[in-house]
């Protein structure tokens, strides 16, 4: 079926048409418009080239959308109907989009007909008179007065800023009134009414205090890198001062902050694993695994190269001036069991922290939440579609993600149905702007509340929406030192905001007759749909559905998941035998058998080292653990410098995950009869997100070896597919064959591969890297040193052979180095040769390259 229509023009239009059955689309008006742009001089291009570019952009957009759903061919996407409808009536869905989820009802054919007619009249005046010359701005992305409505308008922004700057609750009420006006119908929650107590409620001084409520408040995850240091620290200081929590986001955190009042209480572990070191995790009060992001679910992150200033790169353990991509999935989470493993890893990496999982509001999130609760998470965040990143692609901003009201209600209801509700704290975020928003969120099941855009506004943000360009004139979403000087935010402003929200919430609670937030959680009986909503065909019954009141309705600390950490060999053997030596920092070693049911081996013990001494303080090999047997998953995860684990045997997946300075050695038992260099000894995704340290593997490793490595050194004797994917730093030596797609997305670090068959080029992903021989003296020395260490640690026969005839082997090695990394490295070296110190050279090199670009 081929569709010919004047309407489709944006990526989402085409994706929807394809998804509902079109095989091809002829968007003739879009193409005519391109011709018109050229004719009127707005576009200086050949028409066919322009048309081609447009088509190509649309196609790439569709492929991107399909890939976010996990689909790799257009054939599979076509007719897949992978959409959810928000605001379309059941009738219409059943007739034309059967099978599509549409949870709140909505418009019908008559409404669509009216809108189409109105558009037609505007274009073809019934009288034949001239119509406007040009299309009105819709105001949907950049606000235009009198057009599409926004929550953040000049009024609300100004009033919020003034209220929090001057500490005026009165002004704050004016601000919230703008949003809670009777006729304001921009959100699902605005279509609901609160059922105030007919007897007048309870006196407000009997309601839970502002201080107590504020402990449930959090600021959203905004990475250091996307926002400036000043803005990031301001939020951390503010939230820390009121017992709330700020979120580091996925950009890591500079070590100086970790022991100060600027330490982010929530540390995020996202797919990029930027800066996720042992110290980072140990400093956290809560560790959040970011499964997806509200505004752009299914996508990774992208920090454009202009924003990767040297100090940002340092915190993320990457290279200045090189754009940073977070892959969409976590490469160590391919199933709910993998997620349970990661939760376990992180709990071991900091047993004092509660583990949180960030999910996104969409149909089916309830089931995912149930799985996550069973996996041991203590906090589940349901993130809505508003707000979110300052730099998402437009098709994602408008057409991906759903309101938190839907996801929150579903998660809360599903957890109760499965008897899991009291195990977890449910958190929600997504344009929470008033006390009323928080009240509704609580009534739908939330116990903790995240605010992201609002605190930014109190610090000066005026919603310029140029966050991705590094030109934020308020010094918030920029790294440019000149612009950062303009930053005028103060922690008091954010504190005022939190206090005001809490106070407004108290006012609502008093009127509802509820004294504590715990009592308010899940009270959908205190909400009802507005008459105007029902009149428009909106059906909120699914959201407001009651739950089984015999089941627990909110978190209970007694029901929290028991990780049984006392049963781990870390506690039962390592700490038991070495804890007094550990306290004094005295060297010690221990031997034991391990089996593959011992997961995250060494992590808990490593965390104690970091906690007592720091991740980089003790000399290498201070604590040596000699193991025999099969290593379980996440063997040696996040271990710091000073801890060395040697394993004689083999190992499962995630070997050395997040390595933070420690040393891992893996080799087959002396008695084994096979050739180590020809056999697989370690599972997939080894050294995922490693930041520093060393790993020596006497054998072949599985797929995705060293993915997201940002600083560790590793030597092994062969790898599977996708080796060194998204690597940003460190050194990898492979003394054998690689699988296909080697070095995909690699933007930093260097890999040396022994290419005896001279066919590495066939399996190399050349997009970002170049393939060279090893000729620089420094490189040869580096390579030799690593192979030597490998030989000493593992007694590897292949390594010995190579070292014995090293001169002959050197020409057989290939050096894989990313272009951008090489460029900035050579600029830095040139500046250092002129006498500059390395820090200064890095900064200079960044600005030189930026100018050239």
């Amino acid at each position: 079926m081929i569709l010919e229509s004047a309407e489709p023009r944006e990526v989402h239009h085409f994706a929807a048409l394809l998804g509902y059955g079109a095989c091809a689309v002829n968007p003739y008006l879009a193409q005519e418009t391109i011709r018109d742009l050229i004719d009127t001089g707005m576009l200086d291009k050949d028409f066919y080239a322009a048309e081609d570019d447009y088509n190509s952009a649309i196609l790439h957009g569709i492929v991107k959308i399909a890939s976010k759903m996990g689909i790799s061919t257009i054939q599979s996407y076509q007719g897949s109907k992978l959409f959810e409808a928000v605001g379309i009536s059941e009738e219409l869905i059943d007739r034309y989009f059967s099978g599509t989820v549409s949870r709140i009802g909505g418009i019908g054919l008559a409404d669509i007909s009216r809108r189409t007619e109105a558009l037609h009249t505007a274009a073809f005046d019934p009288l034949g008179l001239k119509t406007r010359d040009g299309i009105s701005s819709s105001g949907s992305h950049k606000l235009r007065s009198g057009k599409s409505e926004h929550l953040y308008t000049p009024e609300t922004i100004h009033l919020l800023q003034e209220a929090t700057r001057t500490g005026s609750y009165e002004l704050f009420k004016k601000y919230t009134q703008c949003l809670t006006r009777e006729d304001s119908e921009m959100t699902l929650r605005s279509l609901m009414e609160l059922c105030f107590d007919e007897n007048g409620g309870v006196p407000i001084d009997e309601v839970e205090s502002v201080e107590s409520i504020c402990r449930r408040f959090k600021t959203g995850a905004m990475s250091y890198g996307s926002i400036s240091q000043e803005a990031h620290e301001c939020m951390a200081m503010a939230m820390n001062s009121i017992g709330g929590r700020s979120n580091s986001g996925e950009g890591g955190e500079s070590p100086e902050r970790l022991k100060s009042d600027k330490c982010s209480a929530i540390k995020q572990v996202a797919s990029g694993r930027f800066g996720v070191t042992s110290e980072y995790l140990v400093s956290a009060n809560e560790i959040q695994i970011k499964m997806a992001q509200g505004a752009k679910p299914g996508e990774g992150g992208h920090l454009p190269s202009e924003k990767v200033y040297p100090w940002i790169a340092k915190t993320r353990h990457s290279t200045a001036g090189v754009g940073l991509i977070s892959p969409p999935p976590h490469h160590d989470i391919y199933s709910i069991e993998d997620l349970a493993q990661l939760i376990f890893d992180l709990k071991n990496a900091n047993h004092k922290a509660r583990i949180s999982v960030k999910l996104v509001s969409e149909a089916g999130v309830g089931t995912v939440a149930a799985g996550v609760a069973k996996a041991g998470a203590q906090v589940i965040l349901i993130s809505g579609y508003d707000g979110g990143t300052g730099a998402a692609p437009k098709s994602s901003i408008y057409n991906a993600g759903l309101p938190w009201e839907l996801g929150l209600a579903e998660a809360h209801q599903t957890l109760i149905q499965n008897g899991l509700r009291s195990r977890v704290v449910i958190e929600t975020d997504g344009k929470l702007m008033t006390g009323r928003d928080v009240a509704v969120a609580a009534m739908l099941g939330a116990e903790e509340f995240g605010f992201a855009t609002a605190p930014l506004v109190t610090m000066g943000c005026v919603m310029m929406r140029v966050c991705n360009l590094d030109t934020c004139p308020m010094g918030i979403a920029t790294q440019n030192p000149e612009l950062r000087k303009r930053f005028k935010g103060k922690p008091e402003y954010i504190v005022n905001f939190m206090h005001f929200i809490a106070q407004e919430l108290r006012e609502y609670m008093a009127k509802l007759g509820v004294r504590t937030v715990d009592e308010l959680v899940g009270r959908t009986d205190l909400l009802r749909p507005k008459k105007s909503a029902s009149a428009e065909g909106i059906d909120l019954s699914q959201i407001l559905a009651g739950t089984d009141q015999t089941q627990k309705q909110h978190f209970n600390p007694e029901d929290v998941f028991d990780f049984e950490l006392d049963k781990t060999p870390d506690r039962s053997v390592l700490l038991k035998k070495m804890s007094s030596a550990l306290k004094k920092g005295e060297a010690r070693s221990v031997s034991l058998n391990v089996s593959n049911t011992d997961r995250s081996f060494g992590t808990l013990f490593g965390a104690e080292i970091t906690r007592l001494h720091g991740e980089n303080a003790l000399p290498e090999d201070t604590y040596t653990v000699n193991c025999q047997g099969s290593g379980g998953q996440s063997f040696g995860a996040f271990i710091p410098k000073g801890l060395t684990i040697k394993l004689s045997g083999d190992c499962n997946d995630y070997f050395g995950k997040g390595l933070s300075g420690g040393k891992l050695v893996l080799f087959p038992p002396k008695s084994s009869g096979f050739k180590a260099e020809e056999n697989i000894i370690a599972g997939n995704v080894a050294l995922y997100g490693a930041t520093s340290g060393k790993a020596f593997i006497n054998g072949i490793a599985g797929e995705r070896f060293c993915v997201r490595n940002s600083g560790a050194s590793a030597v092994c004797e062969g790898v599977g597919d996708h080796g060194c994917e998204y690597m940003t730093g460190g050194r990898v030596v492979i003394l054998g064959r690689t699988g296909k797609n080697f070095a995909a997305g690699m933007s930093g670090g260097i890999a040396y591969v022994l290419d005896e068959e001279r066919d590495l080029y066939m399996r190399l992903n050349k997009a970002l890297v170049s393939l060279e021989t090893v000729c620089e003296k420094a490189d040869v020395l580096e390579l030799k040193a690593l192979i030597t260490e490998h030989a000493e640690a593992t007694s590897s026969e292949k390594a010995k052979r190579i070292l014995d005839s090293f001169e002959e082997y050197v020409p057989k090695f290939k050096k894989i180095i990313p272009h951008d990394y090489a460029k900035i490295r050579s600029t830095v070296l040139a500046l250092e040769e002129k006498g500059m110190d390395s820090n200064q050279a890095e900064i200079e090199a960044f600005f030189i390259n930026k100018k050239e670009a």
Partner: protein
Amino acid sequence: MGKATGFMEYKRTESAAEEPLERIKHFGEFHSPLNEEQRRDQAARCMDCGVPFCQNGKMLCGMISGCPLNNLIPEWNDLLYHGQKEQALKRLLMTNSFPEFTSRVCPALCEKACTCGLNDSPVTVKENERAIVEFGFENGLISPEIPAVRSGKRIAVIGSGPAGLAAADTLNKRGHSVTVYERDDRPGGLLMYGIPNMKLEKSVILRRIELMKAEGVKFVTGANVGLNVSAKQILDSSDALILACGSADPRDIKAEGRDAKGIHFAVDFLKSTTKSLLDNGLEKGDFISAKDKDVVIIGGGDTGNDCVGTAIRHGCKSVTQLEMMPKLPDQRAESNPWPQWPRVCKTDYGQEEAIALFGHDPRLYCTTVKEFLKDDQGDLCGVKTVKLEFITDPETGRKLPREIQGSEETLPCQLCLIAAGFLGAQRYIAEAFGVELDSRNNVMTEKGGFSTNVEKVFTAGDMHIGQSLVVRAIREGRDAAAQVDGWLMGYTNLK
């Protein structure tokens, strides 16, 4: 946006103004525009904000912030930067009927709310607008657009000020037959006779009127509806009628000696100069002249400033401008932050000229006239001024002025101009049509609309909202036209 880094690379540059002592020798406009490249650099400074405060046009803490027309400022700034002036003009004309007027006389609420102005200087939006519209006129892009079809509906517009003109222009383009009635001998209302020529050259107004005539709008001048023309007759022969007569009832200073000869309302003074200038280039001296006189102007606002400039050009001996209120601060007070309208002291062109000519600012603050002194012939020879202080009324909390005892002073004065604002619509027109006035003496309409208690009769502009700005009048005219069009035809494409 202009250029992403434009606001960091370019500083605000305004067009050059002729030196005060030179420009007072004539009554012409005195700004010379920037060249093409400079103009583009200025347009580059626009940041295309996600929330453009410049085009907001809503109340913020009691004062309007941003453009009341919701002009698509970021869009035409961007097009101007890219050299797409034709497209910029199209975008501009989507919301503004008369950019050539606003770009000359508007106090630029847009610039006061510009995000660039928060940490630096605002974008030169007003001058950008002027560059675009003048480019349009110079290149024949603004030419008569005769409607393809006539609706057969007849509309009368009473008053040819900016509100009346905007309504007439808009309704004509919808195919209606519009006739504009103006009591003065030339159309334009306060644009023509209220604002002096050096601020808004009258050829600019005539250019627009000729354009509208070519498009089919009829003008009847010298028609004072309610006095020498029958309101009933016009109403009966129209399908709809819009009252746009302005807020023309001036506030008087009823002090002792008010009957002295030589006291005039500012509007009358300004009108007489402009009329003579147009009739005979001031050759016949048939205007209220300030030559060789000590002039005292009561009122420190824009009109007062226009009087200062005009009096100086007449060759006055001295000029003093009395303002009741205390002097406003030079910078925004902390309680008056961006993007609110800044309550700061503005030194306008007339005051600049007075400073250049006489060596000091002509304004005296917290001062008003207590008594007019006349000589034996009954001519004005001086004014007795008194200082004021403001006391907060304990009941209402409002600040009320009170004369300070013993602060009287006498100033020599042979010409006194009263520029103290307007009190509301003039009664005779309201009575002629039978429309009700509200407590502020403006014509009453339904909330958010323009229809009066009389069927077929609508109102727009100062007559509706009280004395205000040209830009608001244009908005009023356009919105009223949309309501009238919808009411007449059952649908409208004007929204």
